[in-house]
């Protein structure tokens, strides 16, 4: 046992004269009597009792319920119209287009719909895809942000992450990667059919659909001030699925190449497999007439984007926007529910507080 007792860990040979380092210094003199060291720092000591949380519950209830009602009402006031143009049904005008995939000649179809209520303010036009996994890991990372930021080297030598959409015929693909390659390329045009049956095109704005910072900072065309994108992208290949190269996305130089807003919108990968992306904005032109009056409309689709292979759906959505975004009854309902629960709990706690609170606090001590 001696051996074990001496198989000891540390030595503490304690010598009156020798000033040890570290711990010894602590031991040999009296510890400082500071509030911190004695664990007596002044402190606020709140306790969560029925009495103290009661007001909080009532306050939360009183605040949340009005907010919820407000949100709910706002959400209900938002006009939203959704049109599925996938064309899976035989009856659908786009049925033929949806059957032929990979056809070089563009397929066009037109859908008619009517709006029961006028859309008063700016209308936002979205395309929606379902069952499209933009958030698949292989997909999400298949891009080269430095290439998109205009980096010359990445243009020539795209990131490995872009595989298998990195090179085509020994030329680097610009923009590389699966996301860019699968860019949504249906063209949607909206027509108002006035009561006379005359088709009037509705002007769609394509500016302002992408984040400002994306368009102006994150996405840059290579070549800096060189406005001739054709030369800049000379040695690159277009993405395999694209019909035209990146420098021909738009005629407007401010919306061409990597800073094309449709492209930027597509490049912001969606969080969930069913998603919508902003396609165009229909600006309100004057205060008097609604942006989209009640009536009949037609949607002319240039059907390029195949979704049937993965059982996807394509939608066109028209929506107005409030200060709280698009139509979303969930938030309002959630606020109302939580507010009510808090209020209810407040009542329960009030009861409990009256029944038990006093007993705990005073009577016991008095006894």
């Amino acid at each position, binding site marked *: 046992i001696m051996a074990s007792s*001496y198989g000891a860990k540390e030595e503490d040979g304690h010598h009156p004269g020798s000033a040890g380092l570290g711990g010894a210094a602590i031991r040999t003199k009296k510890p400082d009597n500071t509030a911190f060291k004695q664990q007596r720092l002044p402190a606020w000591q709140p306790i969560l009792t029925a009495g103290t949380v009661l007001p909080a519950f009532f306050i939360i209830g009183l605040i949340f319920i009005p907010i919820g009602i407000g949100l709910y009402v706002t959400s209900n006031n938002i006009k939203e119209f959704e049109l599925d143009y996938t064309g899976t049904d035989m009856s659908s005008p786009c049925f033929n287009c949806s059957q032929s995939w990979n056809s070089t000649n563009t397929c066009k179809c037109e859908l008619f719909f009517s709006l029961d209520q006028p859309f008063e303010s700016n209308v936002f036009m979205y395309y929606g895809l379902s069952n499209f996994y933009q958030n698949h890991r292989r997909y999400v990372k298949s891009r080269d942000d430095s290439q998109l930021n205009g980096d010359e080297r990445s243009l020539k030598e795209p990131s490995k992450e872009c595989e298998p959409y990195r090179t085509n015929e020994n030329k680097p693909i610009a923009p590389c990667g699966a996301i860019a390659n699968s860019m949504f390329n249906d063209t949607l045009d909206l027509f108002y059919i006035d009561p006379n049956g005359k088709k009037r095109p509705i002007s769609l704005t394509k500016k302002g659909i992408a984040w400002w910072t994306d368009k102006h900072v994150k996405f840059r065309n290579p070549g800096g001030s060189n406005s001739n994108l054709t030369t800049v992208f000379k040695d690159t290949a277009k993405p395999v699925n694209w019909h035209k190269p990146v420098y021909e996305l738009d005629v407007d130089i401010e919306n061409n190449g990597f800073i094309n807003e449709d492209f930027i919108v597509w490049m912001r990968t969606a969080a969930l497999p069913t998603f919508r992306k902003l396609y165009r904005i229909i600006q309100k032109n004057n205060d008097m007439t609604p942006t989209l009056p009640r009536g009949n409309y037609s949607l002319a689709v240039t059907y390029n984007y195949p979704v049937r292979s993965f059982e996807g759906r394509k939608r066109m959505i028209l929506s107005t926007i409030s200060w709280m975004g698009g139509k979303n009854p969930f938030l309002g309902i959630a606020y109302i529910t939580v507010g009510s629960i808090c209020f209810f709990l407040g009542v329960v706690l009030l009861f409990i507080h009256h029944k038990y609170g006093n007993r705990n606090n005073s009577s016991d001590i008095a006894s």
Partner: protein
Amino acid sequence: MDLSSIRKLITRYCTGEESWVDSRTVYIGQKEPPPGTEAYIPQRFPDNRIVSSKYTFWNFIPKNLFEQFRRIANFYFLIIFLVQLIIDTPTSPTTSGLPLFFVITVTAIKQGYEDWIRHKADNAINQCPVHIIQHGKVVRKQSQKLRVGDIVQVKENETFPCDLILLSTSREDGTCFVTTASLDGESSHKTYYAVQDTKAFNTAEEVDTLHATIECEQPQPDLYKFVGRINIYLDRDEPIVRPLGSENLLLRGATLKNTEYIHAVAIYTGMETKMALNYQSKSQKRSAVEKSMNAYLIVYLCILISKALINTVLKYAWQANPNRDEPWYNQKTETERQRHVLIRAFTDFLAFMVLFNYIIPVSMYVTVEMQKFLGSYFILWDDDMFDEELGEGPLVNTSDLNEELGQVGNLFSPLQNCCQSHYWFTVSVLSSSQVEYVFTDKTGTLTENNMELRECCVDGHVYVPHAICNGQILPGATGMDMIDSSPGVDGKEREELFFRALCLCHTVQVKEEETVDGIKRGIHQGKSTSFYISSSPDEVALVEGMKRLGFTYLRLKDSHMEILNREDEMERFELLEVLNFDSVRRRMSVIVRSSSGDYYLFCKGADSSVFPRVVSGKVEQVRARVEHNAVEGLRTLCVAYKKLTHEEYEETCHLLNRAKLALQDRDKKLAEAYDVIEKDFILLGATAVEDRLQDKAADTIESLHKAGMKVWVLTGDKMETAAATCYASKLFHRNTQILELTTKRTEEQSLHDVLFDLSRTVLRQHGSMTRDTFSGLSGDYQDYGLIIDGATLSAVLKPTQEVTSNGGNYKEIFLEICRNCSAVLCCRMAPLQKAQIVKMIKASKERPITLAIGDGANDVSMILEAHVGIGIMGKEGRQAARNSDYAITKFKHLKKMLLVHGHYYYIRIAELVQYFFYKNVCFIFPQFLYQFFCGFSQQPLYDTAYLTLYNISFTSLPILLYSLMEQHINMDILKRDPTLYRDIAKNSLLRWPTFIYWTFLGVFDAVVFFFGAFFLFDNTTFTSNGQMFGNWTFGTLVFTVLVFTVTLKLALDTHYWTWINHFVIWGSLLFYVIFSLLWGGIIWPFLNYQRMYYVFMQMLSSGPAWLSIILLIIVSLLPDVVKKVLCRALWPTTTERIQNADKLYKGHLSEFTPLSSLHAPPVRKHDRHGNENQNRTHRRSDSSPPKKLMCTYWGGQA
């Protein structure tokens, strides 16, 4: 001891098998023995280089890495990191690599620095000069060049450079004094003896002419064991053979005191010195908290694996459709496609593991260790536990880089040790917070170990030192037998013999004042300038008491003990043999020759070991007196003698020498020899020494009782003495029914019957509440106290084949009895038995947490055995303190240690552990849910920076500071009301229900975060400009809610808000926001992705995002708040009642309110009914002067 055996093997291998023998032969002065003796076998010994450093320059990195990755946690993270490196995983290797790298690097730098310091210290010690005698001259040499066989000269106050055999000293009698403070902590001066035949060689020239060899055993770590012999070749051919024992061996690390110089020969050098062999780490104790933590870890590992498995299976089920596996927009590369499906599945599994690995975060280990390390400082700093008298506070067993200790050949780095010891120190504090059994030593722990001779009894006549000394009867002495004025010639002779016996039979040294450092305490002011020192305080008390009775021990000079008798005449006795005290024999003897040539053997020892060896004397009177004294709580010793004829003496001498010369089994042979020699005594009398109870010992014991701990006293003392102490310390109350399980009873009945009797008694009470009350009091239940002695205990513990009627053996019945006793006293315990008891309780089926507290070397085994070992820095050296998990100065400090610090530590670490798991469930579970919506593609929900920093910076500081600062109840209340301790007993905060609650809370919160965000994001616009958010905004929203929720959850749990808590809680939330703004604020040039660019700002610019963040945070926190409030209102725990009351009284509660009214029926009820004994001892200790000057010099630490 594994390491040492490995080292031995290696040494054996290196030196070659043939040269490995069980003993070594050392040629003194490197001189070959004269021809004709045994063949000269050169043996290779290591040089005297001390290597305490662990690494060399070139092996530092591999070795250090290897050491670090031996820890399971580090290894786990390394594996995760490697998986990330090898396969294509969702998160970049940096997310786990960076934290791991950080932890590893910091540890490596710390250890490297420590090792560098050790290298420097090693060099300093290895190069420090030593004086070696070569060719009759004193030569200076570097210490590392010292070789086995060199003759070394050491001067006063120098430290021995290696293990030496003492040849001669500057003192004529060949003795020297040594303090081994740095070895075993005993700062008393010990005497070492030169070999009788070499002590004359005391100059350099003379010692150089010495021709001798030493045969001794190979080095072994036991400091107190050494066997060897020296062959001295004088002129004759036949060498003189002398035994060598530990009294001749000077150990490296010890310091020479009070001796001008010595000559000694090196026998063990360098890493073979006993000191070097001793510094090995001790197995770490694991606390209950740590065990819970490990259990949780396993649960989480299972969760992790099952999550990964579920996802992998679902992935492949989902992917069965090739258009899902590989839609046209998301093709695989050719290499991926060609990979075998099993390999792909396995890679996917690993990738899921990596994705979810954060559920067991690196930072948890770091935080727990930091908490333990930093938290222990609060104990060191505690003012209440500081002892003014000793000038010391509580001791955390940490490494002091004391210059002497830096040189110690300890194989582990001091800092590492420091961390380790800090680590397991606090760990033990933690487990101490759930202590159910306290095992305490009596002497020096419960009592002060400040001995004073109360009385002595010679043949039934009682002598009281004070009364005699002052020449008048003191009031306290009334009613006692005083010295018989005419005891008769025979009586007178016996009386003087008794006094002489006590003056001679001891190992006390006399210290002349001028040669003494430290505090000077004269025995008798004016009369003498010397005082006594000894390793046993009883001996000093006895010798001092004798002085007051007229017989003064002067000194030991030239083997002659000189005493001054009553007539101030000098009497000289030649000291022939000392049969040293040991705890097995429990007695010691000396053989002396009086000036008249008579041989006497004086023996003093415990009554139980002396009475059986007595053949005549007034045994009955003495025994009665001894028992009377023992009942009073005095320590009794019996003194006996026998006269030896010259022949008998010769025979004894022969017997002893034969045993001493034995190389093997010397201890056993010595014990046998002692047994033969120490018999046929004539009883002289007995002494009684008082040892007062420590300040507030009774109060502390009472508190421990109230806190629900069972206190056992384990002592080597007699039953009556120990029982009296127990009464005085309120371990037993007057109405405690004492159950005896002692030799006395087992002599009458068989052990079997006694055990059954007792268990029936105990169980009867247990069964029916209508038993007749023993004390006549209408107590609620009967207190039982058990007294058991060592002999009976070993009988009980002896494994029996005989199976008793109810299937159990004695041990179980005994445990059953113990379980029903509120207090147990084990007396007459050998040190090992103490450990046995602790082990037995530890292993009993409830697996209770045990704590052992003691102050002496005899408690070391028990301290090492118990879950928590506490040493008291007492008077019996520092062995206990050194081996303990932590040391305190007084027994009363145990109260604050356990009730306040232990309690705090426990709630802190419990919250820390639970919270860590909770916040990581919250963190990872949304990622798991996300897999269902991203095609099981292992897409992470959060950005890499968030994944990496979540545990490191966003949520780390609040919990760390919480775990350092939290005080759920005021310190004073905790101290005043020990019953609060029961609230946390049995690991209550870390039980499975609590753990499951936390985990479910985490899952609930995660579901709220994820689906809350999901429904908000589901197919709708979030902004007022119609623009859409992507997946990173989704993740950031979830993450923001997550960070705020977990931080606010901690804020809700915090009960003690100091400015520091405010600072870290609000600060870390602010930090998160600032970081996110910064992280998304610019295009980071070194990153190859810019996914977070402006994501956070865009989110904040959206109204619904704000609203949903607030909503989700409130929804997540709601259930916990409601649960807390409801539980507090409907089923409050004692803790909560006290908190409420404290709040009501604005902190004045501690002074005015009766706390006991706040909880279950008060435990205290028998206090008023003091026991006779208790009262008397009490009065005694009360009336005694506050504190007597210690008349002896106990140690250098004063």
